[in-house]
Structure formats: C-alpha cells, structure tokens
C-alpha cells in the first residue's frame, strides 16, 4: 500500500505516528527515480502526488511556489506560457532508469537534479529559494523564503536539496525561474579525441562568449543523437544562448577560435534544443538494459583521464557534459566500483553515483560515494537531528 497524504497536516500526522511506532517510510514523488541509492530496508511507500498545484507564481518576480507533488510537466507548461524556464534544466530519468510515471518537482529538488546548464547557471539547489517539509518528528518546518537573497539563519534549504528523501518529506518548494533565452545555437567541432576535446572546451570557457553547454560525444554515442545527423567523427558541442543579435556575434567569435581545433559546423535553434535535451536525459544509455550506469562528477580536465585509465582495465563506454566534469559511463558488465573510485581519488577527487544496475549488483555496491569517516559521522549526526527515529528511507544514503 502507498500512503498519499492530501495535505501537509495529513503528512505530518502520518509521519508523527510512524515515528511513534518505529515504522519506516520510503518517501518519493512520482517515483521515476526509483532505484536511486542503496537497496534500502523494507519500508512503506509514501508519495507527495496528493500535494499538487501551483501556489503562487509572479512571472515579473521570476519566482514560483508549488506543492511538492506537482508534475514537472505542468510547471514547465505554465512557465513556457510566460516564456520562462527553470535555468537548471532538470533531467528526466525515465529513459535511462526504465521507469514510468510523472516526475514531480519535489523529486527534482530532493535529488538535486540538474542538466547541461548546471556548470554555468547552478544546480537545482542553487535555484531553490525556500521549502516546507515535515521532519522525522512529524513537525512542519519552513526554511528559506521567496526572495533571491536570504542569509537569515542556517541554510536548511541546501541541506534538504539532494538529501534523497532521507531527511524530510518536502511539501512545498519555492524556486527562481529565468526568461527563456530568445534563441540558441550550437557549435559542433568534429573529430577530436577525448583529450583534445577537453582542451577545446576549456578554451571555449575561457572566452567571453558565455557558453551555456559544453559536451563531448565520442564516436560510440555520437550517432545516437539527432537521429545520427551530427557530422561524422566525434562531436564536441558548445551551446550559446541569448538575444539573437548577440548569439550570432558570439557564435562567429567562438567558431573562429574553435577552427584551430577541428572542422566546425553549426546547429540552429531547433536541432540545438533537441540535442541538449538528449544530452540532458542521457539518451545513448536509455537503452532498455540494466548495464550499470555511473554518473561521475570530477574536475573537468580529469574526466577524460578517468575514462582512459578505466578503459585499460575494463569495458566502459562514456560521454561528457559540463565541460568534461560530468561523465556518464555505461559499464559492459561489472560496475567496477572500487576501481572507479580509486581512480577518481587519484585524479584529485570527485564522486561516482551508481544510477542504474540490476538488483543483484545494487545489493553489493555502494550507490553513493562513501565519505571519509569524519564527514560520514557528521552526516549521520545531521540525519539524527532531522530524523531522530531513523524512519525515512533507512539505508538509502548511508
């Protein structure tokens, strides 16, 4: 049975009782990100889909308040009608995870889900201004607010963002939105190997042209994008967005510099939009299999080194977003968690999250990067302060 509270008070009541009875709850929204985290202890499902709807939206203030279970699609449609967007481009995980259902905004923030623009415009957590949530005692807590600058008290908003439903049950979120860029264009540099692409992307980011997407799509994945329409060879893609007059000027400038790296071609608005949505949603690995998929966050210049090192020892396919700092990896067979994490440490640090794998593999693999002892102990103390009885998603994150 799934618990579906219809109001914040309902949710608080259920949680208060669960805490008293020591009953565990698995919190979720639309559950399209089922499978995130460690195989958790058995728990009763509780979702936020009964808390849905836009509470307050002032387009002129670029701020929206919605109940946590509101479908992302509904929010995007309302924003689009006012020519606004969520700048952090929340990824849709249904393809790669093989899940069904409707992603909710609560799920987006609970998992801190961002997309290609994240490396310049910030993550979901950077757009999140305020929240209401129920803590593990069944108390309704408000943190943050609805203004863009707010340093009043401890920033529990950041803490709850990305806590994967282990610290509290989100009931309402307030976030910043931005105007839709008037237009977008993508510069494609063809035929660069991973190392050369890393150099090209770093060079692009050093120019005053405001690149808002920088990805590298090696041969093995390139044909999967835009129905195979990208020019042959590896594709290093750079997105420019903004006022039309400005984008064309910047595109000329960027193309002129990139020609030193390889042949350059350009994609217009429509192809650009499709391409970046496919990158965002990890289209090449939305393959209906359970081959392990890793999401690695690392220093941009180290991404390709990590993949090169792994290739010598195991079967791995990979492509890069965030200037190389976000590496999507599909392993041929074994997830090779220890090997992967050893290399990440050797390359200066970062973290690997096992996104997809068979149940058998997941049962034996730490889904989230294990923290050093002192940080793990601190995190456990923080969890204890929000969920003293340990009823929210036990085992999912630790």
């Amino acid at each position: 049975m799934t618990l579906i509270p219809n109001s914040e008070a309902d949710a608080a009541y259920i949680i208060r009782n669960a805490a008293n009875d020591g009953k565990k709850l698995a919190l979720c929204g639309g559950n399209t990100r089922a499978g995130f985290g460690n195989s958790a202890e058995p728990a009763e499902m509780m979702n936020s889909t009964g808390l849905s709807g836009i509470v307050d939206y002032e387009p002129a203030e670029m701020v929206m308040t919605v109940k946590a279970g509101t479908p992302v699609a509904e929010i995007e449609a309302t924003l689009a009608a006012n020519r606004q967007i969520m700048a952090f481009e929340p990824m849709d995980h249904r393809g790669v995870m093989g899940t069904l259902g409707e992603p909710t905004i609560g799920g987006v923030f609970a998992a801190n889900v961002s997309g290609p623009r994240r490396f310049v415009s910030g993550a979901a957590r950077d757009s999140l201004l305020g929240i209401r949530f129920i803590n593990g005692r069944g108390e309704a807590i408000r943190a943050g607010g609805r203004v863009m600058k707010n340093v009043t008290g401890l920033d529990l908003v950041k803490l709850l963002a990305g806590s994967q439903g282990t610290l509290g049950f989100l009931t309402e979120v307030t976030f910043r939105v931005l105007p839709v860029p008037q237009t977008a264009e993508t510069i494609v540099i063809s035929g660069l190997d991973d190392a050369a692409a890393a150099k090209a992307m770093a060079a692009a980011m050093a120019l005053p042209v405001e690149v808002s997407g920088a990805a590298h799509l090696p041969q093995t994945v390139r044909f999967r994008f835009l129905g195979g329409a990208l020019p042959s060879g590896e594709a290093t893609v750079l997105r420019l967005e903004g006022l039309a007059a400005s984008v064309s000027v910047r595109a000329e400038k960027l193309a002129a510099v990139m020609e030193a790296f390889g042949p350059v071609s350009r994609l217009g608005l429509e192809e650009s939009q499709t391409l970046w949505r496919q990158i965002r949603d990890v289209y090449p690995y939305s393959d209906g299999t359970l081959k392990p998929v890793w999401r690695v966050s690392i220093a941009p210049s180290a991404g390709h080194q990590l993949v090169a090192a792994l290739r010598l020892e195991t079967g791995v396919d990979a492509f890069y977003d965030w200037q190389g700092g976000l590496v999507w990896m599909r392993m041929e067979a074994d997830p090779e968690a220890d090997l992967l994490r050893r290399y990440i440490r050797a390359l200066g640090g970062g973290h690997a999250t096992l996104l997809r794998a068979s149940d058998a593999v997941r049962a034996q693999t730490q889904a989230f990067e294990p923290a050093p002892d002192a940080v793990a102990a601190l995190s456990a103390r923080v969890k204890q302060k929000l969920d003293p009885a340990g009823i929210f998603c036990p085992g999912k994150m630790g």
Partner: protein
Amino acid sequence: MADTISFLKPRESVLSRRAAIIADLTELLPPECLVHEARELVPFETDAFVSYRRLPLAVALPKTTAQVAAVMKYCNRYGIPVVPRGAGTSLSGGAIPQEDAVVLGLSKMSRILEVDYANRTATVQAGVTNLNISEAVGIDGFFYAPDPSSQLACTIGGNIGMNSGGAHCLKYGVTTNNLLGVKMVLVDGTVIELGGKHLDAAGYDLLGLVCGSEGQLGIVTEAVVRLIAKPEGARPVLFGFDTSEHAGACVADIIGSGIIPVAIEFMDKPAIEICEAFAHAGYPLDVEALLIVEVEGSEAEMDAMLKAIVEIAGRHGVKTVRESQSATEAALIWKGRKSAFGATGRIADYICMDGTVPLGKLSYVLNKTSEIIDRFGLRVANVFHAGDGNMHPLILFNANDPEDAARAEEAGNEILKLCVDAGGCLTGEHGVGIEKRDLMRHQYSEADLNQQMAVRYAFDEDWILNPSKVFPLDGRPAA
C-alpha cells in the same frame, strides 16, 4: 555605546583561568600569532557594527590549518568560546567577540594556493581578500563574481561565513553559488574537506549548509572558488527619476521583460548627495531616485539591451539617462556606489539594514520605511540592490546621544519586521550576527528555529563557536 542587545554571560570557568589559557595558547602558537595584551586586543573588540564592543580573552592568528586545529581542539576541550574573524567588516556584529572568547583570526592565512584555468577554479586560504582573487586572475581574463562593497578588505573566509553577496549577484549569484569546496576545522579539531574542483556534493550538501553559517559550524581555512571568464565589456548607465515609486516600478518592469542586467542599484536623494560629494561620479543631483543599471557583453549585445532598458525607463517617466563614456567614468560610477557606506559614515553615524523584499513590494516598503523614519524623527539614506529586492536603508543617528542610538535601533527593527511582513527576510547578505538575532522569531516559528538549532548541535554540541550570534539567547534547547 548601545546596550539593547545582550551577549551570553561569560563563562566563569573560563574567565578565572585566563592566565593559564594564555600560557597554554603560547605553547600552541608561535609568539607572533598570539595577542593577549589588553592594549593590543582593542582592534579586535568590534567589527563594522561598531555600536557594540567586547574585549576578547585573547586573539589567535594562526598561519596554518594545523595551528587552527590545535587551537580549536584546545578550546573545545576546555569549553572556551571561539569567535572566528576575517577582516572584521561584518555589518551585523558577526565578528564581535565576548570576554570569555578566543578570537580566531584568519588574516595571516592570505595566500592564493592555486589558480587552475582549465577547471576555472582558484584554491585560496581563508584570509585572502575578495578583491585579491579577481585581481590575481584578471590579467588572464577571469574574475571571481561575488563583489561585496567591502571587497577591498573583506576576506573569502568571512564571505563564506556570511554567504556574502554584492551588486553583481543578480546575474552571477552569491557566495554559495560560486563556492566549490572548503577545507574546514571542526569544533574538535578534526580537519575535513567538502567539495573540490568538481560540482555538487556527494552525500548531504554540508558545503551549502556551512556557507552562511556565521562561523557556528566550524572554521573554514581554505576554499575552492569558481572563476568566470570576464565579459568583453560592461557599461553602467544612470537613470534618474522624479519619485522612488517610478524607479521601483521601472526595476520590476525591466526584470519582468526578460532582461537580466548584471546589476540594478538604487539610490534615493540623500544617498545620491552623499555619494556624489564623496566620489564626484557625475550622479544627477536634481532627481529623487537614481538607478545604476549595468549591462555587459559585446558592444552589440550591450547596445541591444540598453535600447530595451531605455525604452522601459521611458515608460516610467525617466528624467535623466546618462551612459558612462569611458572606463574611468564607469569606475567612478561604481566607486560612488561602493563607497556609499563609508561616505555616509563621514557625515553621521549610521546603522545599515539588509532586509530583502519581493520586487513587487519595493515601492511599498520604501514608502513605509520613510514613514517609520519620520515617526522616529530620524534621517535615512536608501542605497540598495534593487534587482534582487535587497534593501539597505542607512539610518543616520548620533552615536554620542544614547537616546538617538536607541531610536535608530528601534526604527531599524521596525523596518526589518516590515520586510518580513512584506514576504521577505531579515537579512539578504549581511548575516544575522547579533544585530538581527532577537528578531529571528519574527521570521521563523519556534519549530523552524529549533530545527536549525538542532542541526547546529550536530556540529557543536557545547555551543562554543560564535555562541552569542544568530539564535535568540533565550529558548535555546538543551543538547
């Protein structure tokens, strides 16, 4: 000296052992890193919230993370309060010490450790000044975005403590949006690292929690910050209006139109006069309200944006439009704005409020603010970040007149409550410190505050880190 805001009662167990504590600290630090003579302690008795002063027990000025850890471990063992300090530019009293506290100053840790252009990061010690970072990388075409007005003096450690903002945050975000990692000493002396050159946290976002925690969760000794490629050009433009309402409505319209300038700054007539007299920036003196709107990018892009903004301003009866004609003029315009607090300090004592309100409420809050100020028989100069609703009324008073000072504090409190009631918050970028501590219940419920304090306990069970700040002194739950 004002005395409305109280501090925690000094711990007798600490005061009585003063000599022994200093002797012990002498063992932990080189002689040049410890200050304990009464006369030498005076510079540390307050920060930029000068109405309150407390002489600390001692001041430690460590040079290494290991020394910070040693001092922290020692103080934790003996229950000695620790007040972290960067450059002491806090406007909310965040760095004001107390009689039983050791001030932990990071000013000797002021080296830029690494600049990494391939990854667009700088790794710096906590005592590096904000402006130093941008100056170090400027020649290579990069900058560090958050730009508090005190950026010449304030340190990155202090910026992290307060999650500082600045004029250009409208486009680039505040400190928390530009911070990638920290090295930090926990209360028991353990050294941890959060984040790094990669994005987003593994596990809980402790980095996000630490940023803006006002030195209550640990001592940050190093930081990795994000660098951004400098725009091709930037152009500030002055827009003068006959009324504050017109200026306020113009701001809301600019943002609502989908144009996001890098900065939109507001000044009212008193502020214009004060800043012009100081900086000679060419601000128009015949208007009631002034907006400084800065756009950036290529010439074509700036032209296009400015054209649209001028058109919007026209609809709001703009009286003067003046574009900066040279880099020198542009610099003067910003010099005037960024010296606003200092220039005000030349003509009167002042306290600076920092509430943020929703953009649609700007005019309403400005009007109500003047009503409050009139009622108390005071004067106010308004200068603030209009694009994000972060208001800075500077309330002028005479510090030598205790009644005047008390009136100013009271008026300030009313203005902050007004900001909260209008849907905003007590502080947008200066922090709670001691200044707004006793107003926290106006913004948060008991349960909200208890939850924040509970999380604070997870870091510092005995409340020795900057203990008189942020949370009201009464009603703190037991561990």
